[in-house]
């Protein structure tokens, strides 16, 4: 009697695990492509994949069907941390008043070259 109950419970657990595995959504990955040597990787979009190996294979099929790239990076979207647009003022305003960071701020007399 006991063993049958146990068996039933195990069966149920097995069934439940299978259900979870079939319905667990694959994580979201952000895809970055280097279009040619000498350029950096650029964000092109995202996709779903069960792990990084599948993410790269899918990225190849989805984002490089016309030789758009020679190298792919994938990063799980949950690992991307972004600045908030609400903080844009406090983050970027301080740069506005520092025009002396640009070469055009400085006077150079006529006739001076290579500078």
């Amino acid at each position, binding site marked *: 009697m006991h063993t049958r109950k146990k068996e039933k419970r195990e069966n149920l657990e097995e069934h439940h695990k299978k259900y979870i595995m*079939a319905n667990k959504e694959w994580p979201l990955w952000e895809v970055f492509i280097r279009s040619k040597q000498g350029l950096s990787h650029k964000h092109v*979009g995202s996709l779903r994949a069960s792990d990084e190996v599948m993410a790269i294979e899918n990225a190849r099929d*989805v984002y490089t069907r016309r030789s758009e790239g020679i190298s792919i990076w994938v990063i799980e979207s949950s690992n991307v941390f972004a600045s908030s647009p609400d903080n844009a003022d406090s983050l970027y305003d301080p740069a506005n008043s520092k025009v002396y960071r640009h070469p055009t701020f400085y006077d150079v007399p006529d006739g001076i070259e290579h500078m």
Partner: protein
Amino acid sequence: MKKEQDISELERKFQEKIDQDIKIEPKDWMPDNYRKTLIRQISQHAHSEVVGMLPEGNWITRAPNLRRKAVLLAKVQDEAGHGLYLYSATETLGADREDCIDDLHSGKAKYSSIFNYPTLTWADMGAVGWLVDGAAIMNQVPLCRCSYGPYARAMVKVCKEESFHQRQGYEIMMALAAGSVEQKEMAQDALNRFWWPSLMMFGPPDEDSKHTKQSMDWRIKRHSNDELRQMMVDITVPQAEAIGLTIPDADLKWNEEKGGYDYGEIDWDEFWNVVKGNGPCNKDRIDTRRKAKENGAWVREAANAHAEKRKARKLRRAS
């Protein structure tokens, strides 16, 4: 909870950005309805790409030669890719891809009605590429300038890739139109069946289109349904004439004054009937998609189990 006053201030700033053609990006504040409208439109667009693979997939094994077969395969593969770019855009708005797909399967979400018509002959591959992709491109080109960044960027990629889709369709029609009497008849028959449904792809007439005005104000849409439809007619008529095919519209006439064609009445009852699910293939299309998801369950299960095993192995090695 933001106060009502704050919301109206946020909405004013949002509209100001739109009016200056500054793109809206995923983390920016946006009105709830803007988000909802975009999720609805982009997911419908994604579903159309995915369901759109079915009428053409139908002919891959029966393409008349290897060249046509390779081309058709590439086109259908592109459509799968386009569906993915678009689902990816909906996910930037906080929608969930799997939920979107389930909405398609339950009938809650719509897709372009054109894919509820059957593809009966090889010439239909020509008509679909030429007319259906032609109409889709007409719709999508202005969407490249849509106010929502991720949607606009996806559209740029889609449009670039789709330009071959229309050309390969026209090429099929051209070859058939220049072939035997039977082949030419086949091409004409395909044009007859796909002409009106293609014009319906732009949606109901402007006076009945409930979403147009708000979408125009938000710069999601740039042209009204009737404007796009007129452009489609004006561009396509000379293309049909050039290969000796006849547009199946007795009322079609050049109108010098407006610099475009006048065309006959569209059967909007047919359109609404197909939208409501009573087209020739509605049930078949959704059944096929639903089965694809069900039959793929073991693959998703295996991939998840494999990923977990790999993760566990990695952890063991690290400890």
